[in-house]
């Protein structure tokens, strides 16, 4: 499988991570598809855990059930919800950037 099609496959089910990544920094999006597949899925799992936790921490109590419900429905549903909740989106983007910064130094 070439890099482009692997990239498409890896992010097929995880558009939230693409949504949270900075436009200026495409390191993650370009680098991840060439990492071996099990490691890539571990990275994806890690990034989800970090960003979702930050999102939950930024929610008010009544927003948490909406956040969780959107996450359970699909990444697209959560992205639509985050478009309306810009503070939570910013917090998640910051968590994502910090994680990527750490990964960049170590991988």
């Amino acid at each position: 499988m070439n890099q482009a099609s692997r990239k498409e496959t890896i992010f097929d089910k995880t558009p939230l991570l693409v949504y949270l990544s900075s436009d200026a920094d495409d390191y993650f999006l370009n680098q991840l598809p060439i990492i071996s597949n099990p490691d890539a899925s571990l990275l994806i799992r890690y990034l989800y855990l970090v960003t979702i936790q930050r999102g939950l921490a930024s929610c008010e109590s009544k927003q948490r059930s909406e956040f969780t419900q959107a996450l359970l429905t699909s990444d697209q549903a959560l992205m639509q919800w985050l478009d309306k909740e810009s503070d939570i989106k910013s917090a998640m983007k910051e968590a994502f950037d910090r994680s990527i910064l750490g990964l960049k130094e170590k991988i």
Partner: protein
Amino acid sequence: MHQPSSDQPLTPPSLRDAVSRQIEDLNANFPDEAPLVLAAINDRVLEPPSPPRENLSAHLPPADPEEKQAIFAKLKEVSASDSTQMSDQEVLYLEQQLADLLNFEVSLKLDGHQLAYSIGKIKALQEFKLSPSQQKNHLPFPESESQLKRPFFGWSNLAPSSTPNYSKFGIALPVLMNTSWSTQFHSLKKWYFHRKMLVINPIDSIFMVAEVLDIFHDPSHQYQFGGSPALIREGNFWSPQNLGKSIVLFITDEKSSISCGRVNI
């Protein structure tokens, strides 16, 4: 919340450790949302860090047929007794042997919790209604009826259409019989809801993984557990030979990596 530290290379297995720490944090900081978040992530990640249970058997040496038969015979023997609990020796033997056979840990007690019955008869229930707006076409068996009442644990936040298998194999347990129920019902409800259980058909040697979706109480004491149509059907609990005989044990599934359904031996 843990962030990658500068003195620790973030490559496997340290990345694996970082994931484990994040899961611990999630469980500690958001106990209500954690099982749902983990289920959502598992649904998205193409290859989880631990292979799903069904795939593990391919990497394991084949179990000795004689050992298997000894375990199956022990399960039949245990279920044939009139007791609703196993002796300490039987528990020790089965916990160890089943863990080797199934490749995940099972136990009679977990986190200080124990069921009033571990051996009993399972009753075929209607579909568990998980949401007030649940439609029949979201049910695993649309021809079956759904429970009319709100489940004891409350409505689930799960969307049945997005995770069709998540609620297919449900079990109702006799949690009301726990001695601590009257004083700790709030924490017990949280602890039990969506907990994974091993439900064994000891007569046909069928092993099912189901999740706790409701509380079961039979005033006549004829039945000790209740099961969803899919659990009863695929576990063969309905068969005239079995007549509902079942053994129920807790599963240790901290990473939510064990899928509900039949375990291939």
